[in-house]
């Protein structure tokens, strides 16, 4: 997600990770699904739990709660399936969330230089100031682990 450049009313999805709420812009969200079986296989990308199957597509599961809140989720109520642009392609990623998600429209305040890289913008809702997440900063990269919060072919078809 690109950084928000100006004050802007946008549709956002609020997601709950433990005690805290975060937001993603609605255009990044593909769907909200009930937890399903996570398939785990050997790999070295520690941020990923495994993959789920969704509409025949393999979707990696990335639990961002520990990085954002310092605590692992004890319950997974849903997977919020988000899209992330990677080069020319669009990747899906399933983010486990611990509560209901909510679609809202809110004015976004751009993040400042002093904000963590995972903060794309801020919004205010129900008296709460909420971080709008920058997925690019939260997803694993080859260069290294994403920063912590302060608080094919493979042949496509054989």
């Amino acid at each position, binding site marked *: 997600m690109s950084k928000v450049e100006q004050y802007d009313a946008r549709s956002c999805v609020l997601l709950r990770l433990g005690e805290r709420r975060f937001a993603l812009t609605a255009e990044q969200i593909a769907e909200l699904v009930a937890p399903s079986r996570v398939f785990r*296989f050997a*790999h070295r990308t520690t941020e990923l739990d495994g*993959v789920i199957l969704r509409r025949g597509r*393999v979707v990696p599961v990335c639990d961002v709660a520990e990085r954002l809140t310092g605590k692992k989720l004890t319950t997974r109520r849903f997977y919020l399936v988000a899209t992330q642009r*990677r080069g020319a*392609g669009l*990747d899906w990623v399933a983010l486990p969330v611990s509560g209901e998600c909510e679609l809202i429209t809110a004015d976004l305040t751009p993040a400042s230089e002093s904000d963590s890289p995972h903060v794309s913008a801020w919004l205010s809702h129900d008296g709460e100031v909420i971080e709008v997440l920058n997925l690019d900063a939260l997803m*694993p990269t080859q260069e290294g682990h994403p920063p912590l919060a302060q608080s094919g072919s493979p042949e496509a078809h*054989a």
Partner: protein
Amino acid sequence: MQFATTHKAPHARTEQIILFRCSTQIFAISSSSVQEVRSVDTLAGSPMEIVEPSLTKVRHMFRRGEQNLYVVNGAVHFGLRPSPASLILLLRRSRTALLIDGIEKMTTMTRLQALPAAFCHEERVWYRGLTVLDQSVIPVVSPEGFLTADELFLLDALVSRTVVPETATVNEMGLGL
């Protein structure tokens, strides 16, 4: 008047694969990548032991013709809990022999999905992609992913400093026995 469309779906390309087990996990490999399947018993006493602290997944080698073949422990390679291996897959056009726990079955895959880009470490070298079989996701290994060119160079250098015993030579009849 509407006519029923007579669209004919193209035949899906299929690939024969072998499902094998390392530790508790199932992997797939194209059967065309496997030259031979041997029991570890046929290796008993014949391979030369290798001790390279930086490459603990390789503990043995043997010679076949002019080539050194290196035995890669699949469980160690994938970072899994070591378990008693019973079979060795000799890979085609490769200098790798893969130590595995067992073969589950041979089957056919019709679709290989790219490993999602979020997986961004060694697994990108390990796997050609993922396939879905019986509603399970199985990683399809890349035969070239077990030993890098640098690792082969290191192992060759190690072996060249050592005299390879005659018993470490494998022929068509067996692994030097």
